[in-house]
């Protein structure tokens, strides 16, 4: 069961990359990259999963003493939170860039911005 989550994660990354590499529209590339980010987050979460265990929240059912045997690995969940926030930050920045690039040349085609080359 864990493999499905991880496999879909990797699949999402590949789809994201494919979208980024073939679409020439800036916004589509940004969307493709955000798909890839979600794929990565999914993979990170699935790495932390231990079959037959519950969320790392201590409450009446999962007492502090029995935690070690009942909860899944909390560390990937902490990492994924940071990864998501950073993904959001970068996507917001790329959107702002795309807006400004559109404002400059009235086009969203990446192939039009090749004045810096060789």
């Amino acid at each position, binding site marked *: 069961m864990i493999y499905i989550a991880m496999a879909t994660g990797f699949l999402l990354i590949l789809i994201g990359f494919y979208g*980024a590499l073939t679409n020439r529209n800036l916004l589509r590339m940004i969307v493709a990259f955000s798909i890839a*980010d979600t794929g990565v987050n999914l993979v990170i979460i699935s*790495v932390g999963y231990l079959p037959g265990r519950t969320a790392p929240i201590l409450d009446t059912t999962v007492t502090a003493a029995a935690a070690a045997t009942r909860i899944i690995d909390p560390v*990937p969940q902490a990492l994924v939170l940071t990864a998501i926030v*950073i993904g959001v930050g970068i996507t917001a920045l790329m959107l702002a*860039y795309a807006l400004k690039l559109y404002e400059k040349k009235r086009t969203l085609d990446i192939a039009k*911005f*090749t004045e810096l*080359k060789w």
Partner: protein
Amino acid sequence: MVSAIYILIAALGAAFFLGFLKDGMRATAFAVTLAALVFMNFVSAGWLWSFAVDAAAPVEILTAGFSPPFAINLRMGLTEASLTLLVSLSGLLSALYLKDVLLALGRRSMAVLLIAVMALCGIILTRDTFNLFVFFELASIATAGLVLLSEDERALSAGFKYMIVAQAISVFLLIGIIFSYHATGTLNIDGMADASTELKTGASIAFFLMFIAVVAELKPFPANGWALDIYESAHPAFSAIFSAASGAAFLYAADKLLHIGGAAWFPLATGIGIITFVAANLLALPQSNDRRLLGYSSIAQTGLVLAVLGQQDILGDRYLFVAGGLLLAHSIAKAGLYWLSGLIAGRALPDWAALRSRPLLIFAFIVFIAMLSGLPPFPGFYAKWELARLLAGDGRIALLALILFGALLEAGYLFRWFGYILKREQPAQPVVCTPHKLAPVIAAVAAGWALGYLWGDLSGHANLLLTVPLLFALSFLLLEWLPAWIKNTLAIAGMLAFFVLTYAEYDPLRLIFAVIILIGGPVIFLASYHEHGRRLGFYPAAMLMFAGLALLIRTGDSFGFFAAWELLTVGSYFLILRGKHSEPHALSYIVFSLGGAFLILAGFALAAQGAAQYDLASLGLLTQPLAPWVFMLLAIGFMTKTAAIGLHIWLPGAHGEAETDVSPMVSGILLKAGLFGLFVLLMSMGKQQLYGIELTHVLLWIGALSALLGNLMAIFEEDAKRLLAYSSIGQMGYAVFGLALMNHLGWLMALMFVINHYIYKSMLFLSAGGVAKRTGTRDMYRMGGLITLMPLSFIATLIGIIAVSGVPPLSGFGGRWIFYNAILTSDARLPMVVLFFAGPIAFLYLFRLIHTVFLGQLKDEHRKLKEAPFWIILPQMIFVVLLLVFAVVPGLALRRVDIYLNQFFPEGGLNWAGTTISSNYGYWNPVAIMIAVAVIFGSLFAWLLFVNRKAQKVKQFNIVFAGERPYRPETTHFAWNFFAPYRKALGFMVQPFVTRFWEGLTNLLHVAADLSRRLYNGNGQSYAFHFIAFVVVVHFLWTGV
């Protein structure tokens, strides 16, 4: 000491605090930013002091009150302290540089700058992989933000391209981290390093992804298109931070990851690094935009340091010294150059000629390119020496060859750029020099020299900056404001004093070279009195060359020898570059000389086999498989300096186009450095066999061919000084031939040539220079009949050509006589035929020189010429006297050397009975010859005077042409294409094969570079393609390997 965490806290506190300030209070915001940066500098400098001076142990800084695997920890050691200091210092200086831009853009840009510097410090300090990822992302977002400081519209698209690649990098990095965590159970770098055994089993791919993502930030070839666009379009101050600081931070991150991966991953780092180094340098050749060129160069240097990271297993405890030297030299020089580029309006390389209005900035530029190409006395030089020594010691020759090839390419395009600065016409806009933009440049220069001193101390060899000759040369930099004649007197006095002080240490052979350098030099310096004004840049360059020469003959170990060799190369390059049209020739000179120097470096490194101290005498103890290769490398290196055939194309232009008093210095004295090298080599290594070929026999043939072709090419020259330059090739060919004979008289002949060549070549160059100064041209067919107007120059040239051609009464004949006796004893017969042919040919071009310049018809425009300036004539007269004395009493110089040579070649010496010098075959009595010739000549002259008492002085003109006035030069005295029939007969031997070969090679490099740089087509998407392709290809190569 203040805990290192405060570096991060101060930056973040200041950044958030800036939010409070209203938009209007920008000045205070800038003040807060500077204060935070100064505090960060203070903290890291404090730590550096405690580690470097008090040698304290590295300190772990815990966060959140828990021990490392469960919380994030930072470490502050010597490397971390120095790197954080580098980062925060370049941040501070760039912030200072960006004052007006930051004030224009407001507090947000200041906050971004602060966070960028903090992120880089974080990357250096953190010991947790995920924390490293967070700081990575912070740095890349800050970079994307800071790119906007530039007023160049294209910066936006460059920023976007960077964001695309950054996204892809973060994907790989995250997956790498999470799977490494899964395999090792911890996110801490040291934890992962200890748990590396399990890591190898399952998830080596995880580590690979993590490592390749970090390496991708180091802009490896071919996936670095985005970096070049940022370098080209971003604000230069930001590029300074981007290349110096972030380069250093990411390199240290890569080093930490290599610490996890262990020795198995070193070859991967070296492979990627060396490919990037060579490819980036190659692609930099055709660049015309200055910032893009600097971008290529900084990518190349980062690649070199990455390659050195991969060699830390064999570098051992010298690892920090080598990697640190290369990295700091690169960072400071690159930051300095970018700050300089901010001062200049034009973006093409020749536009930098605007620097000529500020000599201080030119000095800064020289310091920076010297640091980049690893010239003494800067850290790069010591680091390159140690690297070469250790690489050759471990047998990694291919890697050493690639590094040296890349370094040569880099030196090539940097010195070409320097040639543009000095020689191209100055653009209209002047250099804008506000104090807050000058301060960083001056700070960089000061840091460069300070590091040079520091690396000198740490190098374990003699600290170059403490050697007397170099200090004396550098002191002239401070005296630049003095008028020329005072500096000239100082130079002469200094050199004579140095000779007197060190007189006792020389053995007879080195004494001859010492006399030529330390007494001959001042005699030529006499000619420098004719220049007026301050002559900026002449004396430091000249004294640098003489310092190199003086060190060369006094040093005993290979390091001292190589350092002196590079010093004299650099000094002579700056001297030659002073000529009006000497830019292309000076460039070919420096590239050939540095190529030769790198060969010598490789030779010494190979010979030392890892030994730190290696002196020249032990060259002789080398065993068979290694010795011939070392011999070949060193011999070719030295022969680039004596311009043997094949390596000679730089000499005619370099010596021909140099200034009047520079030509004799460079050709009379500097060529002897190459000969001295060959002397030392043959003295210690003697005969060597390579695949059955006797190497000294090959030298014999090279010497003979150089003599023949050098003289042949001189015949057909129209320019007086180039004719003399080609003749130097011929004379050096004689000397190399003499050396290669490997017998007593052969060496004596070579020494005779060393002395003779110095005297008459300097004299002839001075007289040609004097004539050129008066007539304004060096083309011989434009001159003629100057004997009446410039009698003293004529006498000097007459005595000179009699000496060079070897006609009896003068010392040239002595050289020929020893040559004859030498070849009688030697068994190699065929090369002698070539040399016999070269003898009379020398006579042809000498006669052409004196005939077309002094004899024949006097041109109308030269009717009212005066004699050459007094100060140029004086040294010539001294040389005439010297020649006559040396002709009559050759024993003065040769006797003690003859006895000294006995220890190398006991039999075949000369015996000096009375005035007759006899060898096993013939005898030669110079005094008797001189008297006999004088008596015969005197009596006949008296007889003619008696018979011709009433001879009437008549000019040539009116007899032959009876008043009609010929305009075309060839009608007056046949000067144009003087030896036309000779060209018909032997013209085929002087076809410029060698020149075509070298030009073909350089064109090949340029075309290859021009084609392969098309890879960067400017499309962000294709850059993403390149990156992913890079990851896939490297992965399959690495797993396949």
